[in-house]
């Protein structure tokens, strides 16, 4: 069986500066795969390229057997690849419910959409309580929940989460990570980008460590969690 997502020798540049310098990795259906690394390692650039917001200068992206290289961003989501972007980027002047509905923009199955909205509210009860409230008035953690709920509304085959714990309080971070674990248990395939390496690796089946545009180390989540160099560089141990 081929992997759901296959990235091969992917290179992305901003002008002359290469931000991603030829990385390869796979995501199998049902897996949680994480990319960890410091700021500027190229993690967000990688996700933005996968969802079509950036165009690669080289390499291959195959998703569900199809090349994504020529597909414009607004069509990628219809293939089953949803992206919850870094910094959450909810639509601030729309209500929570309208944000969720935008996540289902391309869907036409009205009953299915209503069911999935309810599912998002079950996953994040606080969103259900405030469904009419403008999304811009939510706290950071609540906005993160909304961004994840919105991404799920497209019924993705692969959910990409970019820095879901960024800027959150420790309690809120735990809550978000617990939700990701719950999604994983439900069988959702997830590509997770995180700076919080400890939390991400604990959840992940596979992990890749990125440094200045390259993958420098790969392994199972547990292997990386116990790798000495990872522990030194990313888990704050000496």
């Amino acid at each position, binding site marked *: 069986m081929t992997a759901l997502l296959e990235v091969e020798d992917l290179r992305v540049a901003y002008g002359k500066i290469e931000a991603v310098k030829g990385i390869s990795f796979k995501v199998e259906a049902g897996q949680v795969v994480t990319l960890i690394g410091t700021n500027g390692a190229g993690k967000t650039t990688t996700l933005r390229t996968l*969802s*079509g*917001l950036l165009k690669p200068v080289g390499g291959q992206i195959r998703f569900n057997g199809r090349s994504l290289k020529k597909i*414009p*961003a*607004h*069509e990628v*989501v*219809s293939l089953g690849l*949803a*992206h919850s*972007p870094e*910094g959450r*980027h909810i*639509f*601030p*002047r*729309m209500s929570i419910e*309208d944000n969720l*509905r*935008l*996540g289902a*923009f*391309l869907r036409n199955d009205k009953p299915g959409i209503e069911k999935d909205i309810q599912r998002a509210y079950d996953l994040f009860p606080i969103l259900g309580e405030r469904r009419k409230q403008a999304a*811009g008035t939510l706290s950071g953690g609540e906005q993160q929940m909304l961004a994840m709920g*919105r991404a799920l509304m*497209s019924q993705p085959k692969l959910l990409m989460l970019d820095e879901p714990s960024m800027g959150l309080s420790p309690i809120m971070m735990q809550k978000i990570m617990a939700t990701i674990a719950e999604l994983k248990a439900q069988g959702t395939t997830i590509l997770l980008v995180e700076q919080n390496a400890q939390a991400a690796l604990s959840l992940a089946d596979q992990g890749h460590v990125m440094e200045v545009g390259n993958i420098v180390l790969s392994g199972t989540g547990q292997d990386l969690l116990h790798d000495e160099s990872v522990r030194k560089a990313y888990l704050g141990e000496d």
Partner: protein
Amino acid sequence: MNELPQQLVNGLLLGSMYGLVAIGYTMVYGIVQLINFAHGEIFMTGAFGALTVYAYILPDGTSMWVALPLMLIGAVLVAVLVAVGAERFAYRPLRTAPRLAPLITAIGLSLALQQAVWAWYPEAKSARTFPQINGGPFHLGSVTIQTGDVFLIIAAPISMAVLAYFVMKTRTGRGMQATAQDPDTAKLMGIDTDRIIVVAFALGAAFAAIGGVAYGLKYGQIDFRMGFILGLKAFTAAVLGGIGNIYGAMIGGVVLGVAETLATAYIADIPGMDKFGSQSWADVWAFVLLILVLLFRPQGLLGERVADRA
């Protein structure tokens, strides 16, 4: 001297016309942050589109009741074509260029469109007579409404209602709101933002064309320069109402129209101000209002808060 109710009605009518044109400025700005300075000329080409239908396509002496709907279609068709063409060939190639480039392009396009009509439209080197609706005027108590303005009274609220329905209720309208708030994330939702931008230009042009027909019916003549001052006024209305907000455009238009009309009518009554009440001062008062709003409420009357565009 005219009574206050009459002045208010005059201002309301003038303001609705500003509002119809202001919608185009505000929609395009809301989505691509471009001040389309050629929008006044799109309004002008719309008026000429209507004139073309009446003068060159319909047989002589066609009743206005038959002609007007066809003229409207002609106006909208021409204006939308010009606007969509401008977007495709002038603005889209500059989408990622520094902000100044599309702005200067817009000013250039505005001059080019004026000169094109001047040079190539038959007898357009001076003003052309616009067909009028016979009958009227109508009297409502002390208020007189000119026949040409009846069109505006009907068209402006219908246009606004159609626009509000479109933006709030249709899928494309919701896609438009999302694109205005966060274009990249809109793409992640599956929204074809290039298409949304075209729709914004086209819709704005359609309302400007309706405004162009209203102008012709109101003043009885149109010329290649008519879009310049009216475009500036409509832009002022858009800023006044809060640029990016479609309801603000209409409200800004009405406030501007009423303020301008009242200033022209009554400012001469203030002791020492007797020189400042003539029609030629109307534009001055309109832009004084703009300056005041920019000083004290820069986001406009219904302005979008800028801070939440994080």
